[in-house]
């Protein structure tokens, strides 16, 4: 899937540039965008290290287990068959909490952590499991209860009440989560690679 999207975007772009005479812009995009990807990762590296470290502290102290127990009524629906007290579920719960609080910078490293734990449960290297797909879909549907960046930009643009859109955001967010979870469940049917009885701890 990603193979076609990667090649498709570049090839279609070059074709359009050829027809519209925009080769110069495409050429400079090819030269500079790869560098901006590195800048992005370098910028992210600090927060990835910080939150992976803090997460380890919270995990060792038993704090993540408490949080994951708090969220278990929800996580159990999305991740049936996943050990509710295992390291994967704990990491997933930390990521979901960070998302709900609107801590995007913390949510990404915590999410990567969760993916690593899910990978440990997967018997097949290099293939996504149903739990992984469900988890990524949850992260692509924004769970953020208070989109502060959007509010700030609305305020700067002169909105009379920047957060009057919140109920609408929650409605649209819920719709997106429900559709995403349903699609992930339906499309993943019959191809479960998860180990069913895994109760391993860290």
């Amino acid at each position: 899937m990603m193979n076609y999207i990667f090649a498709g975007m570049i090839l279609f772009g070059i074709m359009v540039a050829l027809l519209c005479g925009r080769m110069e812009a495409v050429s400079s995009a090819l030269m500079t965008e790869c560098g901006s990807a590195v800048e992005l990762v370098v910028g992210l590296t600090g927060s990835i290290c910080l939150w992976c470290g803090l997460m380890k502290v919270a995990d060792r102290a038993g704090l993540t287990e408490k949080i994951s127990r708090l969220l278990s009524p929800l996580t159990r629906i999305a991740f049936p068959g996943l050990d509710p007290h295992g390291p994967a579920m704990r990491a997933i719960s930390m990521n979901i909490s960070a998302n709900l609080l609107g801590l995007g910078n913390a949510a990404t490293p915590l999410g990567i952590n969760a993916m690593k734990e899910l990978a440990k449960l997967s018997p097949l290297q290099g293939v996504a499991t149903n739990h992984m797909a469900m988890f990524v879909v949850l992260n692509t549907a924004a769970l953020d209860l208070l989109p502060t960046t959007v509010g700030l930009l609305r305020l700067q643009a002169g909105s009379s009440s920047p957060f009057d859109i919140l109920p609408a955001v929650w409605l649209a967010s819920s719709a997106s989560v429900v559709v995403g979870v349903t699609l992930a469940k339906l499309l993943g049917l019959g191809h479960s690679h998860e180990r069913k009885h895994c109760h391993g701890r860290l």
Partner: protein
Amino acid sequence: MEGFNHYIVPSIVAVFLLYGLLQNVPVFDVFLEGAKEGLSTAVRILPSLVGLITAVGVFKASGALDLLSHGLKPAAQFLGLPTEVMPLALLRPVSGSGGMAVFRDLLDSHGPDSFVGRVASVMMGSTETTFYTIAVYYGAIDVRKTRHTLPAALGADLAGFVFSSLAVLWLFGQ
């Protein structure tokens, strides 16, 4: 609201460390252990991000995105979305900074409290940069076969967009 926001991260960090100390965890040693893992993760997500961000850059710079959003205007009408937000709907899943730039333009040109401005705001608030998330998360664990992840995630985005328009229509009127 802004002020409250500044308290969240420091409080969480403080709780983590205090709780760790109370449980007799050697907090700095354990922190370093985790941070070291974080470093190797950062290196591992780099290749997929270089590929994806370059592809999106070419797509934008060539004008292919404008062409596509123009061509998809009938689809926007069919879905009940105002045609003005179509570039945002196309760019939002693939590029965080690109989506943000288009969003700013929409707020400036239509006003934040207009129908278009509100729909764009709700779209921004209720969706994420899908491709980036997929590239980072699967890149970190070397998964190439993402199976049904992308269709399900894009379906969720589409639902988010359609319901953005519906919710604004319902709560604010035209």
